[in-house]
């Protein structure tokens, strides 16, 4: 399912499809000049069509656009991911309460473009999108729905598992909550959002989000395979990822790798890290991934090849591609 399909679905909203179709073949960007009638007597409304008052409420919960995106998300996931990996999905996604935007536009059209933040509220099973730009919504919705589909809560041990992250909850003081694996998790989530829902690369902004973390996700996919990565992600099985990587690295190296991806993530959110610490993180991550990839190739009896650039910086490789 491509973004083009989603856009066509969006265009099937009640008001506007034919009017947008009118401009759909225009080769140039539609420029509009808003006439700001300072003199209110200049413009008078004479007649309104009944159709303007039909259709779904424009509030989010009933908005047909969100409903269609929601349905398409479900269709793709159930098509691409094996049923045995979807317990979290069926528990959370199928019962998601709403997609909430505290500010911003709610309408029948969405456009691609800019970044937006959002959070999956585990407690209430809803998605909060922080946006004041309608164009930011589409990619964020898929990203957050993936979080919703890959989360489980262990109430007995006060742990939340979400994709490849783990959050240990401190009951008395939330400031003491500990999160581990958030860097890998955000990277894999965004990587999957792009791969599953935008294979034609139409949401350009989606590729600039969590760029380095996405590079790490892509490398992990090369090392352990697409099927295994997705299975572990949807099962929220970070320990499973560690076990899988132990075929190619020591546990100590793996934990250090995960820690350093968290360092990258926190740096991207708040650039207070010293550059030396950041360089150390990137260099270790690069070396870890290349060595693991090399071992995974050898284990399969394959030669080491490097297709394109999938490291973080232009790291000097110890091997030449064949």
């Amino acid at each position, binding site marked *: 399912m491509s973004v083009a399909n989603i856009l066509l679905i969006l265009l099937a909203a009640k008001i506007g499809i034919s009017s947008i179709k009118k401009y759909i073949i225009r080769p140039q960007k539609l420029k509009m000049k808003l006439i700001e009638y300072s003199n209110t007597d200049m413009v008078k409304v004479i007649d309104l069509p009944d159709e303007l008052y039909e259709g779904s409420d*424009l509030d989010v919960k009933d908005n047909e656009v969100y409903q269609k995106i929601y349905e398409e998300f479900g269709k793709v996931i159930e098509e691409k991911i094996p049923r045995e990996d979807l317990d979290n999905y069926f528990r959370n996604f199928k019962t998601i309460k709403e997609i909430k935007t505290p500010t911003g536009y709610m309408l029948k059209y969405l456009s691609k473009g800019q970044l937006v933040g959002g959070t999956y509220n585990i407690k209430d099973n809803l998605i909060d999108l922080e946006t004041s730009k309608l164009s930011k919504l589409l990619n964020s919705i898929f990203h957050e729905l993936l979080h919703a589909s890959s989360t489980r809560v262990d109430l007995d041990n006060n742990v939340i598992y979400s994709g490849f992250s783990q959050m240990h909850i401190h009951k008395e003081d939330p400031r003491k909550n500990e999160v581990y694996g958030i860097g890998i998790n955000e990277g894999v989530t965004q990587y999957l959002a792009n791969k599953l829902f935008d294979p034609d690369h139409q949401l350009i902004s989606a590729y600039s989000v969590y760029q380095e973390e996405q590079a790490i996700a892509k490398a992990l996919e090369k090392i352990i395979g697409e099927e295994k990565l997705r299975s572990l992600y949807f099962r929220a099985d970070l320990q499973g990822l560690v076990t899988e990587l132990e075929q190619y690295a020591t546990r100590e190296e793996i934990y250090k790798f995960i820690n350093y991806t968290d360092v990258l993530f926190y740096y991207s959110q708040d650039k207070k890290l010293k550059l030396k610490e950041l360089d150390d993180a990137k260099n270790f991550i690069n070396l870890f991934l290349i060595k693991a990839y090399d071992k995974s190739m050898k284990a399969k009896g394959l030669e080491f090849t490097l297709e394109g650039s999938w490291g973080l910086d232009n790291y000097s490789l110890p091997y030449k591609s064949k």
Partner: protein
Amino acid sequence: MEKIKISINDEIKECDILYTFKSHGTRNYYLICTDNTYSNDELNVYSFIYYPKDKSKGLEKITNKEDWDEVKEFISLVGVTNECC
């Protein structure tokens, strides 16, 4: 295509409705329509506040800056939508 009739400078025109949207910033619903005329290659559009659940209220003219700013922001964004389609 849905149309509305409006009078612009005492000239009655049948306009195409291009968009309707709700802003969470102002909590208003807006309608954007065009009389399909152009000014320097730009399509002339008009905007009003409307009440999707109450036809008796008709369309309300926009009189304050906050509403105009909301509509301008929206227009700046949907131009991209049309382009990508």
